[in-house]
């Protein structure tokens, strides 16, 4: 209980403003809504001629990627540039750290460059927490995905997508389909959806791909896609990593598609105006039928645009949260 308070405290400054963004868990509805509102304003701005704002002028943002991800890194990079920050991209493959330098030493080196924000992706769950605990107090940490733990900016861009297309969360039934076990996105979505007041969150998949006691995080468990999709307003498909077959989580892509692939036929049991989302990159014919991915109910491409806006929102909010913390400390 005590420690949970610590984890929460880590993300917020003394005034309760965001200073790091590590997880959607434990953040208030007001704060998540503020992120969405801020993101909304940036999303609208994307259509304007002048795309840059000076919110992070003179600040240095370091994209610290311990795991490859061109796509996520690019949106963070673009988001930082739109906020007028200087951006440094560091791809630190695990082989570099296995040369003997500890994560803490890596951080010390980066701090010496007078960075203001680290955007961190790391294969170990909890790495951004660790970094937030060990960096100097005026560096903001944004979690860009850690192990199986959390991917809060992806979850928030999904929330933005839902809100912009459904108007709100309260009456919604949302289904998350596929490999929940390995998905940091799913965990962050479950917390965000519950906090934002969704009526029901469902997870759908075979037992091999569902974490134990996932229902205690606030999700109803379904093993049958037809049952799980019944009357839902939102369908979120997760990417299936193809190595899951080799490690015996699944028999084959074919059987997975047969049981959990989202087809036009299957989608019929959902509400007629249900929306379909996917964090990408998609495997056509593995978790989703091409016609559905490209169909009218699909928002997959929209999500990419919202991703930029959401990351701009979170980065600007965390930076201002750090600034108020700094002035409070002085």
């Amino acid at each position, binding site marked *: 209980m005590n420690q949970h308070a610590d984890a929460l405290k880590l993300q917020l400054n003394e005034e309760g403003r965001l200073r790091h963004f590590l997880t959607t868990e434990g953040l208030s509805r007001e704060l998540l809504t503020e992120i969405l509102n801020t993101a909304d304003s940036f999303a609208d701005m994307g259509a304007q001629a002048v795309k840059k704002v000076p919110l992070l002028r003179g600040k240095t943002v370091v994209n610290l990627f311990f795991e490859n991800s061109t796509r996520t890194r690019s949106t963070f990079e673009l988001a930082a540039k739109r906020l007028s920050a200087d951006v440094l991209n560091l791809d630190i493959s695990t082989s570099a750290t296995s040369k003997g330098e500890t994560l803490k030493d890596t951080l010390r080196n980066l701090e010496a460059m007078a960075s203001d924000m680290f955007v961190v992706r*790391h294969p170990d769950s909890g790495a951004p927490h660790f970094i937030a605990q060990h960096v100097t107090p005026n560096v903001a940490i944004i979690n860009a995905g850690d192990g199986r733990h959390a991917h809060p900016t992806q979850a928030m861009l999904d929330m933005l997508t839902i809100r912009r297309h459904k108007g709100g969360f309260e009456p919604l039934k949302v289904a998350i389909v596929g490999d929940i076990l390995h998905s940091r996105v799913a965990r962050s979505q479950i917390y965000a959806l519950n906090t934002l007041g969704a009526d029901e969150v469902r997870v759908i998949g075979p037992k091999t791909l569902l974490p*134990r006691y996932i229902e205690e*995080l606030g999700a109803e468990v379904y093993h049958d896609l037809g049952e799980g999709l019944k009357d839902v307003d939102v369908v979120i498909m997760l990417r299936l990593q193809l190595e899951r077959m080799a490690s015996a989580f699944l028999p084959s892509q074919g059987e997975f598609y047969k049981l959990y692939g989202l087809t036009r036929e299957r989608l019929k049991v959902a509400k007629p105006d249900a929306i379909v989302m996917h964090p990408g990159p998609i495997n056509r014919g593995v978790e989703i039928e091409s016609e559905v991915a490209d169909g009218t109910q699909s928002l997959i491409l929209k999500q990419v645009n919202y991703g930029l806006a959401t990351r701009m929102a979170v980065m600007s909010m965390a930076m201002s949260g750090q600034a108020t913390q700094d002035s409070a400390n002085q």
Partner: protein
Amino acid sequence: MKIHIRGGRLIDPANQLDEQRDLFVEDGKVVALGNTPQGFEADRVIEAAGLVVCPGLIDLQVSLSEPGFTQKGTIRSETRAAVAGGVTTLCCLPNTAPVLDTPAVAQLIQDRAEEAGNARVLPLGALTKQLQGEQLSNMVSLKEAGCVALTNAGKPIHSNQTLLRCMEYAATYDLLMMVRPQDYELSKGGCAHDGKMASKLGLPGIPEAAETLDVSRYLVLAEQTGARIHFSQLTTPRAFQMVDAAQQRGVKVSADTAIQYLLLSDDNLENFDSAYHLIPPLRTPADRDGLQAALSGSVLQAICSDHQPQEAAAKEAPFGATEPGMIGLQTLLPLALKLVEAGCLSLPKMVEKLTTQPAKILGLELGNLGIGAEADICIFDPEAQWVFDEANSVSQSHNSPFYNQTLTGKVRYTLVAGQLVHELQ
């Protein structure tokens, strides 16, 4: 050296003793209880009024880290922590570098322990060469070199054929095997109990079945071979039930747990604090409560510290990337007293699980304070409150989840073979 320990509450479970009685030590042995023997001129009188006098603690599982890992701890530093915690005898694991799979390494460790002059150090020899789980170690030679039991120190033995032969060979010479059951495949890559907390934190899980499945493998083979097996650090009530049932059938098995599994649970992992990264992992609060309930029976025979010093860098990383383990020698007794305080068992029963029972498992004439017994004695103040912290921690390493907590019960004096090896200043 003649020592008179005066006015303490003497708890000696081996002799069903729990009363205020003086104790007299001469030439390393207990020579009298109660009245001063004729002509006994004490060189030192220890005033023990208000204190508990009991046999020195016997810890079945300790990593001393030497040879090979002296950045974590040394034989000198860790045995010093032992006596500060009232531990007078400890079994040290063979996962050293070089591995303790030869009489030479066994001898080296014992020599250094003797030089340090703190606690008695009983080496556990490697069950297989290099702990690789493939070839039998020279078990008999290791025993002759002072090893009290053989263990693979948590390293897997994949082949049941090899394991069967280990057990047959050990049974031939009535050698004790200590095993920490954990199915290799089910625990591979895991760093937390496969439960709600691991799901929430996204940590790769180790299910209860990793323990119970391996326990059943050992039990089946122990029953077949007649080998003597001691299970170290069981963490689930179900595993204890399985051991209990086997004991009823006459299988020669015994079991312990480490104190942390009786007090902590996976709830503590919230916030990714690597101090709680242990292997086997901390289980659920229900498992912890189940272990506490098992304290009133006989199957949970002993409690150890599973002391594992780790240098700061080994713990300063994201949870799953840290080294598992915690230091525990200095806190074994005060933490055990928490269970007495909580009403799980009486103080004499607790002392029994920390002294007499581990001695019995090892087949040693230690852990009692009868006349003629080795004067290995722990004298502690059961009421004293203190804050365990970096300043008063004796181990070379500082990886304890109990730092900055107020503990009740402090060791005042520790005697090994009649020598005062620790005295609280």
